[in-house]
């Protein structure tokens, strides 16, 4: 599904990613872990098309297409979804408006007619229940005045409705208490399918207790210094990142 080859990325001439190689197949969950400043969020942003990053070398192929050549909205319509670490508040636009606009953008891109108003409402309400949210959320402005947990839940709601193929989750567990984390994890788990892949960028192992990854990669100083199975996360929890950074530097 996604093939990252020798990816080098700079921000304002400062190299951040220094040769990332990563192969993600359909249905897999990959966790990207690493210390602060290792380039985890940069990787998530570059894949989703945020401006301000310069790719100096390497390629990213997404379902045989050159992902890096697409505008951010085209990537999204092609099924790449970024769940933000800090979801943006947009006063003046209601949640339901955004959901409808997003879903219809995808449908238009795929040559399908606009979603029927009743079907849309039924779909949205079903997902709202799934995420244990109040229906009133739909009519509030996007993320405005939401608590940290509510914002993250809202990201998962969008994900559930847009049904992306590749979900990139940037520090989804940060700022969540254990109850909110469980709800979010439950939402993600319900979206797991053989056709859908996940990249979970996280600093902590905690999230992985609830969403079990197939692979864990450790990013340090712009490179993947170690890859392994779910057990690697436990090892990191125990030993920290220091030993891997030392190994990489040696």
């Amino acid at each position, binding site marked *: 599904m996604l093939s990252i080859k020798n990816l080098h990325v700079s921000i304002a001439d400062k190299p951040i990613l220094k040769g990332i190689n990563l192969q993600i197949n359909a249905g897999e969950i990959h966790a990207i872990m690493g210390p602060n400043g290792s380039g985890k969020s940069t990787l998530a942003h570059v894949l989703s*098309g945020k401006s301000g990053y310069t790719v100096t070398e390497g390629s990213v192929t997404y379902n045989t297409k050159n992902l890096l050549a697409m505008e951010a*909205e085209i990537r*999204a319509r092609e099924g790449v979804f970024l769940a933000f670490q800090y979801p943006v508040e947009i006063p003046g636009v209601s949640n339901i*408006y955004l959901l409808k*606009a*997003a879903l219809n953008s995808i449908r238009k891109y795929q040559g399908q007619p606009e979603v029927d108003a009743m079907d849309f409402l039924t779909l949205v309400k079903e997902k709202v229940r799934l995420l244990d949210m109040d229906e009133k959320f739909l009519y509030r402005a996007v993320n405005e005045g939401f608590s940290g947990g509510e914002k993250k839940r809202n990201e998962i709601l*969008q994900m559930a409705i847009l049904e992306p193929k590749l979900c990139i989750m940037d520090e989804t567990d940060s700022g969540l208490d254990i109850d909110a984390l469980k709800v979010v994890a439950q939402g993600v788990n319900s979206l797991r399918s053989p056709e859908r892949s996940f990249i979970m960028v996280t600093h902590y192992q905690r999230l992985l207790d609830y969403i079990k990854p197939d692979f864990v990669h450790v990013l340090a100083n712009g490179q993947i210094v170690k890859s392994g199975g779910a057990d690697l996360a436990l090892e990191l929890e125990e030993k920290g990142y220091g030993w891997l950074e030392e190994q990489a530097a040696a």
Partner: protein
Amino acid sequence: MNTATASRYTAEYQTLAPTLPGQTLPWLKQLRCRALEKFSAHGFPSPREEEWRYTNVSAIEKKLFSPSLSLTTPPVDKVWLKGCQLEDAWSVVLVNGRFSAELSVLDGLPEAVSLMSMADALTASPAIAPLVEKYLGQAVNYSEHGFIAFNTAWFTDGLLLHVPAGQVLAKPVQLLHVVTQAETMATTRTIIIVGEMAEAKVIETFAGVDNSYLTAAVTEVFIDQNADLTLYKMQSESEKAYHFGGTYVKQGKDARFTHHNFALGGLLARSDILTDMDQASECELNGLYLGVKRQHIDSHTRINHLKPHAISREIYKGVLDDRARGVFQGRVIVAEDAQKTDSQMNNRNLLLSDNAEADTKPQLEIYADDVKCGHGVTVGQLDESSVFYLQSRCIDEETARNMLTFAFANEMVDKIRIKSLHDKVLEQVLLRFPQEGIEKSWL
């Protein structure tokens, strides 16, 4: 100051004076004379006056607008008027500065409530005329500035709304000011009195023909103890028109005043919103100004915390495109006696073009020592992280920018609690900005 203009108006005044209402009342005649003297000497406000620094009204001085002399209502395009009139409100209509009984809709107005033209109020019943004498000029003095003097000397009509103590109005009242003739001046004086424990919602709407004219409207508002008034101002004058509209408020103890100022029209438009707050009163000032082409829109507010424990909240937002200029001057004055004042003022401006300009000047003057006051100002472009957020949700960049611009303004529109007014304002707001990609039916 242009006294040549002033003397032209003063010369005309002699012939027109007999047509002005209330000329048989000595107190009013005297008041008008004093105001005229003031105007003759000083003319319209000059940019040298601190509160008119950013707004030069010399374009108004170059013209000579004439008041409408006819006491009968001129022909008004009914379809157009219907577009301005709110269906679910009592609606009183002033055409070219004079009351029109035939266009007004007052069916079912409670008997205890007085709603009539200023001309009628001055001459009609023995109960009402003394009210006018008691209140006119009490919320604002003609010496405040040239437009008040001008209005006091020249008002051809206006409205009086008196909601007696304890009365809660079931429907909003719309005061609709329209101008149908080019080069006319519509100079009106309105008094709103909300008695103790009473509640009312009032909408002042300003609109006119696609031509040059001058609106100079002054509204004095008196909100008695523990009474509640929500006042909306919908200024959608023609884009060639000149507008001055002043709202001057006196709030009693525990009185609540909410103002929504939608400044959308006019080539040169200025609003004054001034309120004097008594103990534990509350006021909320919301404003939205949208400027396109060469519009100049000035919003001037002053909140006077005179007594302790009063709360004021103010947020004004501006969106300026093309060569438009927006001005916000907000003053909060906390008197020495006004301990425990709680005041927040905010002004946010969005510039959509390199040639657009926002001048903003928040001022806090605090003479008490135990208060909580804050203010904030921003002038800028759209937030790029919001644009990216929408793009990451499948929305193309142009639509994202249009949505965010609209949303910036819509935050203020969403505060309107009267459905029919909300829809009208929304329609006007949408007209002023690129709508590509915005689905109106989903809003």
